[in-house]
């Protein structure tokens, strides 16, 4: 029997007050729980990201509101905490965790716009270049430095008691620093590559790591949770960047030196590797 439903899937309408925003927010990506738009904050010249959690029609309205509210507030809380403690994350500009009326528009949160590319894109590009040119060049050097920055960013986040819950290279951005934009020449010296190559390597690998998407984050000081966080990234790294897998060792090395409890977490990571993410319920 044919299913004769030819209606296109109903796109989620924007929540108020964004229904009349000009220019209209542009959809960047959609996950199971939320839609991410690019729009602007109070002035059209101030770009920002809008994360909309639409209500789910299959949930009981009361439960739906509670879940949406809880998730928006929990993500915002973690971002604000990170930001206060000096972990590089997008700041929260505004939010509405309740939506409007009974219509059930879900909730939304506006965050600072983060310039740059995802670490995933950057690592893939660097991997290609290294393959083309063989090892040992400026790209390899830059990639190693990038891995170090990731380790340090994660260490800083764990140090303040936040676990991300969904660490992947897509959930990290490399934001070009204002200074490197002015003189993107950090890598031009002391490398055997030709000047242009070194320059482009410098430009694409320079910058600051900004962690994004704290939708699954939690506040925890437990070594177990931090170790699982790293384990998730290790697995994601292995499948997304198999060619750069040894680079992950550099992430862990720098992580280990980044804060006081880091060594214990790395020890714990070894246990987690043996059993997987889920903890044994025996004893």
């Amino acid at each position: 029997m044919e299913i004769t439903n030819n209606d296109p899937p109903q796109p989620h309408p924007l929540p108020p007050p964004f229904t009349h925003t000009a220019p209209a927010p542009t959809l960047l990506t959609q996950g199971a729980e939320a839609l991410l738009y690019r729009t602007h904050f109070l002035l059209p010249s101030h770009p920002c990201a809008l994360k909309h959690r639409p209500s789910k029609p299959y949930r009981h309205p009361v439960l739906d509101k509670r879940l949406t509210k809880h998730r928006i507030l929990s993500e915002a809380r973690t971002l604000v905490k990170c930001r206060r403690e000096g972990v590089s994350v997008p700041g929260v500009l505004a939010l509405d965790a309740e939506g409007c009326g009974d219509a059930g528009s879900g909730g939304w949160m506006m965050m600072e716009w983060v310039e740059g590319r995802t670490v995933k894109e950057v690592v893939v590009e660097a991997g290609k270049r290294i393959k083309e040119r063989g090892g040992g060049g400026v790209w390899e050097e830059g990639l190693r430095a990038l891995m170090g920055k990731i380790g340090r960013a994660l260490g800083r986040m764990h140090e303040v008691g936040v676990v991300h819950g969904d660490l992947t290279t897509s959930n990290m951005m490399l934001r070009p620093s204002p200074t490197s934009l002015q003189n993107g020449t950090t890598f031009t010296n002391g490398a055997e590559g030709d000047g242009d190559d070194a320059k482009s390597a410098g430009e694409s690998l320079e910058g600051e790591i900004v962690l994004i998407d704290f939708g699954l984050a939690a506040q925890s000081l437990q070594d177990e949770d931090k170790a699982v966080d790293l384990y998730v990234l290790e697995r994601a790294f292995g499948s997304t960047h198999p060619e750069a897998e040894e680079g992950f060792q550099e992430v862990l090395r720098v992580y280990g030196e980044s804060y006081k409890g880091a060594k214990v977490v790395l020890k714990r990571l070894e246990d987690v590797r043996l059993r997987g993410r889920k903890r044994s319920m025996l004893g």
Partner: protein
Amino acid sequence: MAFLQSLNLAHIPPDLAVHIALYADVQNAPFLRDQLLQGSPAFEYALIDATVILSTTHVLAAVFRAANDHLNGRLRSRNVHSEIVFSLGANNNIAQSLRTFGITATTTDLLAIKLSTNPSITASTVSEHLAASVNGTPVEFSDATLAKMADGGKIRKLYKLSGVGEADSKGKRRRKDGSEEGSGGVDGIKAGSTGYDAERERKELEVAILGLMALRGAV
């Protein structure tokens, strides 16, 4: 009165225009405060002590929140104007927010905000009424003038943000990208930070405040 600014916030319907006037050397703060306390309809304004306002974005974020809650019929306080003052606070205590951010008897730097909640409220009616009521020197509503009035220490204290955006000596706040270059200067502020650093500190403080206002105590 030439200094009344009328603007539209992004995302908010244009008929809900925002009218803003900033005054220095206000002489009649006790009178204005009494009008508010009596709930006199002619004095339905958000009257804010400008010394606790960091920037235009800071106060406009509060206006945005209040306007959005107004449009959704979700005001927690008496009207959209008191809601603006309430929205500046970082907790759920309305009275406390009105006391800290609202006009006091000793206020001399005053920010007056009114929304066009009905079509009879226009830039000219607001401008006239303010000119007749506020005994002070109108100045431009801009980041530069607000920065001169702002009491940074008081603002940090109100939002419990000591250290945010400040390059502090304990090295507690590290360079966020983890790079080693330039520790930011041990006493960036005291030593008269460069324009770039000061701007960066202000931005950092601003975004931390916006986050706390958005959470409003749900920390």
